[in-house]
Every structure is written in structure tokens, then in C-alpha cells.
């Protein structure tokens, strides 16, 4: 039940985008088309899961035993950057269609603060291994939900008469704000 709560909370209540403000860049950038947004979401979920595993291992097997907590930032970012690049190359080699669907979003993920944020938050909250993984998957799905909803709305707004200065990022942020309002209805559901 704890795990389920954690999972649902990561998706709805403590949504990475709408609550933690993580991954805003791709959230604004790759949310113009639903298909792209969904692929991006899936790619992020995938990388988040991997990162959750890798960062937990680094943190608990190397950094903590040696008392090197302060190297967290450097080593996490190294892990993520290399991991993403390896995965990209691997996918490109193994499955070109998958690369077309997911791989092209991977470079963008390297500098995506959602991934780094996940590693840091998981370390900060002292989750055990299983919890870290669940947290990773849930957060990834939460990101996917937010970005796909956003892309649906933006596809519709593309056809709307949005005031000129607000077109693009402006209206997207306002929509995100109202989405955050709507999502806040779930607060209190999970303590």
C-alpha cells in the first residue's frame, strides 16, 4: 500500500512538472504535438527508471560507504550523461524504429533537470531501492501525463485566437498554472 501511495502521489499529487517544476524545458518545448510529447514522456520514464537504479547503486555502494556525499552532484550528472548517451547509441544500433520514436529525444534529456532532480530527491528522501524505482517510474509517468495533456491542449490552442504576445510559452505556462490548480484537488488525498 505504501508503494502504491508513493506511485500515485508521484503521478498526481507531487507531479514532477506541476509540483516540483522539474523538466519545464522539455515540458514547454516538446509539447506542441501529441505524438512527440508521448514519445518524450516515454523516453523520460525510461531514463528515469534507469537513473533511479543507477543513482541508487552509486549512492549506496560507492558514495555513502566512502563518505563522499558531497560528490553526489558530480557523479550523478556523470552517470546520467553517460547513461543517456550509451542508451541512445545502443537503441540506434539495436532498433532504428525505436530510435526514431524515442532515441531522438534522448540528447534533450541529458540536460533535463527532471532526471537529475529524481536522483537528488530520491537520495534526499532516503528511499530504499524498491521505493526509488517506484518513485522513478511514477515520476516518469507523471511527467508523461502532464506533457501529453499539455500537448493536447496546445494542439487545440494552435487553432485558437490566443493574443499575440502570449502565443507559445506564455499561454503554455498559464495553462500549466491552471493545470496545477486542477491537480491541487488531489492534495490531502495522500499525506
Amino acid at each position, binding site marked *: 500500500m505504501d508503494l502504491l501511495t508513493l506511485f500515485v502521489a508521484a503521478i498526481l499529487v507531487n507531479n514532477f512538472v506541476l509540483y516540483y517544476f522539474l523538466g519545464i524545458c522539455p515540458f514547454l518545448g516538446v509539447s506542441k504535438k501529441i505524438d512527440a510529447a508521448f514519445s518524450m514522456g516515454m523516453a523520460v520514464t525510461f531514463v528515469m527508471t534507469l537513473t533511479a537504479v543507477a543513482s541508487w547503486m552509486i549512492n549506496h555502494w560507492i558514495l555513502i560507504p566512502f563518505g563522499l556525499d558531497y560528490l553526489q552532484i558530480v557523479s550523478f550528472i556523470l552517470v546520467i550523461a553517460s547513461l543517456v548517451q550509451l542508451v541512445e547509441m545502443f537503441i540506434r544500433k539495436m532498433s532504428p524504429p525505436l530510435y526514431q520514436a524515442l532515441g531522438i529525444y534522448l540528447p534533450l534529456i541529458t540536460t533535463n533537470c527532471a532526471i537529475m532532480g529524481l536522483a537528488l530527491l530520491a537520495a534526499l528522501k532516503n528511499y530504499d531501492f524498491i521505493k526509488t524505482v517506484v518513485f522513478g517510474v511514477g515520476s516518469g509517468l507523471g511527467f508523461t501525463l502532464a506533457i501529453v495533456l499539455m500537448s493536447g491542449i496546445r494542439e487545440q490552442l494552435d487553432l485558437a485566437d490566443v493574443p499575440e504576445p502570449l502565443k507559445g510559452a506564455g499561454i503554455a505556462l*498559464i495553462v500549466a498554472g*491552471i493545470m496545477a490548480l486542477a491537480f491541487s484537488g488531489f492534495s490531502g488525498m495522500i499525506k
Partner: protein
Amino acid sequence: MPPKKSIGAEYLKGLWNENPVFRQLLGMCPTLAVTNAVINGIAMGLATAFVLILSSLVVSSIKKLIPSQVRIATYIVIIASFVTIADRFLAAFFPPISKALGPYVPLIVVNCIILGRQEAFSSRNSIGRSLIDALGMSTGFILALLLLSSIRELLGSGSFLGHQLLGSWFKPWTIMILPAGAFITLGVLLGIALLIESKTKARSV
């Protein structure tokens, strides 16, 4: 390569024309996350400026030594080191602020402003120019954070830097210090920024 700008222009472009937040839409995560109070915004801005300026200095001074295949990785390591220093410094001397900023100080490492400037500017320009550029960008970033956090703190708590400014008649808009308020305020500010831009452009043509 575009024609060289004067030193002044190189500095000023970060304030408006290439303002990282309002014009380039970079570094949105910290911009939104830590601006619920002015003090947090300033601290974040300063920390980012510290990292940006020092990384720019280092990158521009060793730019010839870095092989191009691993340049991004190298930049990241350099940035990460300075971020660690900033993080530790805040934790040691300003624990409450460090606590308030939470994971967002370490997250400076993935702030696109910093990496973007290294790739786009420091790796191609002299140390002096990079320094000016980094200073300009930092100022632009700090100003953006200051603006956003002032609005949010003023409306959300009726105060500025913790001092109660608005009288008791004012009912604070709690929403402004919550995520929804952050998004909406920034969205509206972006709209205003673009509006000003298009107005000034129309006049200059």
C-alpha cells in the same frame, strides 16, 4: 561568426535582448521553483551567477585543450564542481536558505543557461568577453528572478524580503506562493515582455 559587439553591448544583451528567462526561456525550473520569496530568488540568482561566471572563465581559458567529442562532458564536470562548491557554501553559512532552496541548488548543474553559454559563447570567445557575457547573463537572470519573486512575495504574503509592506487590509493571495501562481505569473510576465518587445520593435522600424 557575427560581428563583434562592443563590451557594453555584450553586457547589456543579457539584460533584455537575450535575457535568459524572458527571451530564451532557459532555466525555467529554478525560476519557477524558488521565487516564492525574494530572498530565495536572490540567493538562487547569486548562486547561479557564481557558477556561470566561474565556469565561463574556466571553459574559455582551457577551450583549446578540450577535444570536441567530450566537450559537453567536460563542461558538465566543470559546472558540477562549482555547483558543489556553491551548494556546500550555502549549506554551511546560510542553512535556512539552503533548506528552502532544497534540491534546486544542485540542479543548477542542469540549468540550460550555463551549459548553453559555454557551448554557444565561452568555447569560442576570449576570457574577457566570456566574463562580460557571463556577467550580463547572470545579471539578466538575477533581475528576472528578482522581478518574479517580488511579485509573488508581495501578492502572496504582502511582504518584501520578509518585511510586511501592505497593511492588514490586504488579504494575501496564497495561490501566488504555490505552483499555480508561479506558472501563471511567469506566463503573464512573458506575455508582457513580448508585448514590450514588439512595441519597441515597431517603433524602431
